[in-house]
């Protein structure tokens, strides 16, 4: 990882940067969710889910296509919750029951480059 840090007011997410901050695609986040323990996913969810609005009020002030490095890192960490919340809010376990492990799925956005 580089020396980029989260914006100061989101330092509470620092413990999750090493896990989620370097992932660059939905499939990488899906694979990460499968390999983490449920307790780790729950801790991330507990820290972030109630404060999503606060994060996006901050991100709203930037051009989505030209995020500064700190905000780009913040958004990558936050996108990890799209997968972690499936484990915590839906399944009560990291993996989809009966699915192969590790399970990689190709996901492609047409004409849009997701973060």
């Amino acid at each position, binding site marked *: 990882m580089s020396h980029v840090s989260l914006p100061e007011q989101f330092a509470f997410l620092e413990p999750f940067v090493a896990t989620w901050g370097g992932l660059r695609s*939905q499939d990488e986040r*899906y694979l990460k969710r499968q390999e983490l323990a449920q307790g780790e996913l729950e801790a991330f*969810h507990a820290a972030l*889910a*109630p404060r*999503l*609005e606060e994060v*996006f009020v901050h*991100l*709203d002030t930037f051009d*989505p296509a030209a995020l500064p490095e700190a905000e780009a890192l913040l*958004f990558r960490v*936050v*996108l990890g*919750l*799209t*997968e972690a*919340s*499936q484990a*915590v*809010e*839906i*399944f*009560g376990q990291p993996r*989809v*029951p*009966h*699915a*192969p492990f590790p*399970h990689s*799925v*190709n*996901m*492609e*956005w*047409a*004409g*849009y480059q*997701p*973060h």
Partner: protein
Amino acid sequence: MTDITEHMTKARDLGLENDRVPTEYYTSPEYFRREQDMIFRRAWLMVGRVDELPEPGDFIVREMPTLKASVIIARGKDGEVRAFHNACSHRGVALVCHERGNALTFRCPYHAWTYGIDGSLRAIPAEQDFPHVDKATNGLARIHLDSWAGFIFLNFADEPEVTLPEFLAGIDVMLEGAPFEQFPFSIRVTDEIDCNWKNLVNAFNEGYHVAILHSKTLRAAVVPRENPHLHYLDVKQFGPHSAGTVQRNFDYDPQAPALTWVYAQMLPTSAPDIAAIEEGRAGFYEHPGINRIKVPNFGTETITIFPNISIQPLANGYLFYQFWPISAGRMRTEVRIYSRHAPRTLREEYAMASTLAATRDVVVEDMAMSRLQQIGFESGGKTYQQFGQNEPLLRMFTRDYEAYLAGGGLTKVPTQAEAAE
């Protein structure tokens, strides 16, 4: 409240008595070979949407594992969309290696034989050494192409037995004017798994499994109290194609902080947009061919186009599923989540990524179960599987599958002039 039991179409209502189906259909390489020849080389197959190729010169390349076909689909300078086998006329090289792009010509990377975007052979280096090659008859090999409602269909027969409208057999009429074009943005999910492709076709053709297999992902959102086995309603047949009406729970209110936040940003493709419905601008909900029995808690019309497509129009877009056999025991699922526009904000990107994860996980549940089903089939202890009265579309698909394998299935609808004779 409407008595929905009267709309629960049973197999007997459609005269479908095939309640047992040989597992051999799902495990035998010989059946797979016959499927390639008798179904996938005869039926019209959906491969994309015309709005993937808006400009002259735009092209896409599609790999079709069932037929081992590599296909170039390109919009010519004249505006016409054409399909070709991706194979150079010289020594057969698959010459277009990009998945999509815009080009004036296609140039083979081996010896630089060059083709127009319309497939015509334009240039042969050292042409004097190929006096036997008539450029006019050595363009890229064409594949029959037609489109309906913006969907591109191909037919791999030398001469198609029926036209695309004949093939669609009335489901095109039912969906006439359906607003697919209002939802141009898509996210595509592709996965391969060890099971027969028909396991997935069947899973999408019955709601009986939803409360069980999808107990955590879908049950609360879509299985209504008055229809606990999610029996499809008002099943309609159009040749081998079909449609059935499915309910959902409008009072579904996920008490989960991340999901609640997502719903507040941008409704998932599958969620009813109640404000839009009340104002009459809810896309497919207003279409007369969809939910013709007017169930008040309408969820989707599950539309099956033979042999391998399921389309679910929803209030905020539509879901498109396609199931490609690779062998008797392996298949590829392609899912496309169509919505009104690409993300405009990071909030919307998060919401769409969340919806993507949720939709994918439901499909993963279906694929995981289909893999377990394949393990059971191949174990060999059971020689047939059984379809209930509440699974009429599985019987119907099997009936038409057998008809295709026997050389039929494609009924040419007489034109009005022919009918009058």
